[in-house]
């Protein structure tokens, strides 16, 4: 995730101090990994240097926590460009799982067993995410669903591969 774009977008929502910015980020996006203050201030310093944010208010006293930051026009354009740019679809070619299955077949081990153990681990992870989702709010549900659907894709692959093990074994050993 692009932390700088996300912080910038939070500033577009309204000017704020570094401390409040961290709180806002953590509340919305920091479910698993809250930001460090250091990250927030170093990112703000970089955005400031590139003219994407400006300091719109300085309270008396010293230290970075006295400054209030606001997004600039260039900053707004930057957020807009980021949103319009699609993310690169990940392709997970040549996963470890594929390698394990082939190795099991090559060495005459129980490849179905390898797939079964993985399937069970995936389902256990989905179960945990489903519990989190059921107990949480709508934002939790969206985050958990994202992970659930990715695990589901893996499980479909595991199921297909299980169904094709016989043929795969023949091809590999021939």
């Amino acid at each position: 995730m692009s932390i700088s774009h996300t912080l910038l977008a939070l500033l577009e929502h309204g000017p704020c101090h570094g401390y409040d910015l961290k709180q806002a980020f953590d509340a919305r996006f920091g479910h698993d990994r809250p930001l460090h203050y250091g990250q927030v201030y170093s990112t703000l310093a970089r955005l400031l240097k590139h003219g994407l944010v400006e300091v719109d208010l300085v309270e008396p006293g010293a230290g970075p926590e006295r400054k209030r930051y606001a997004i600039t026009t260039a900053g707004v354009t930057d957020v807009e460009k980021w949103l319009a740019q699609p993310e690169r679809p990940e392709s997970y070619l040549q996963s470890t799982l594929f390698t394990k299955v082939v190795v099991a077949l090559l060495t005459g081990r129980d490849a179905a067993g390898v797939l079964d153990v993985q399937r069970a681990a995936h389902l256990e992870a989905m179960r945990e995410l489903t519990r989190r989702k059921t107990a949480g709010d709508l934002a939790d549900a969206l985050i958990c669903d994202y992970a659930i659907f990715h695990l589901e894709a893996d499980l479909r692959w595991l199921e297909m591969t299980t169904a094709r093990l016989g043929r795969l074994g023949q091809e590999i050993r021939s």
Partner: protein
Amino acid sequence: MTPLMSARGLIKTYGATVALDSVDLDIQAGEILAVMGPSGSGKSTLMHCLAGVVRADSGQVRYGETELTTASDARLSALRRREFGFVFQFGRLVPELLCLENVALPLRMEGVRRREAERRAAGWLERLDVADCAGKRPGQISGGQGQRVAIARALVTEPRIVFADEPTGALDSLNGELVMRLLTRCAAEAGMAVVLVTHEPAVAAYSHREVVVRDGRIRTGTGVSR
């Protein structure tokens, strides 16, 4: 803990097809058990044998004092009416009856008076968040609503075990999620066990544990029954 239901060495064949090949399975009171596996693997056959809908060729299914494989038809049908609840992929509601009457039907068949049956039916429609469907016929409501009405009908007799065969199979993800949330919540509150047949992992993820059926045999499973 003594299991609520216990199956040993179940075998069921259809002609040359071995639908179940020596299956052992325990169901604990109040647990949600997912039965997974590819289509044609024997999930529905297993469920039907457990629920006393189909008799296995050999093996035992013990439920309390009853041995299902040798019980009389009358005893089996009484169990299915009083102790077990059923949910199918398509609601199978009676199209001529109002949803309220559909849900009250299992109670009416048990001799509960109309007013009392409909009062209890209305309570379950409420719990499944479809109280507004009470006065409509099945043809007038959506698939997701119909499935929740069907669940209300399955739970209205407060069975010990709910057998659900692909209950979200005809629903989109959002409605499937809603159905699973409500089904699992209601079952937990009422202490019912659920045997949830599904090939969808996202649906099985609502269970406490799962077994996988492949070619009529149980392969592996994880999770712990509560």
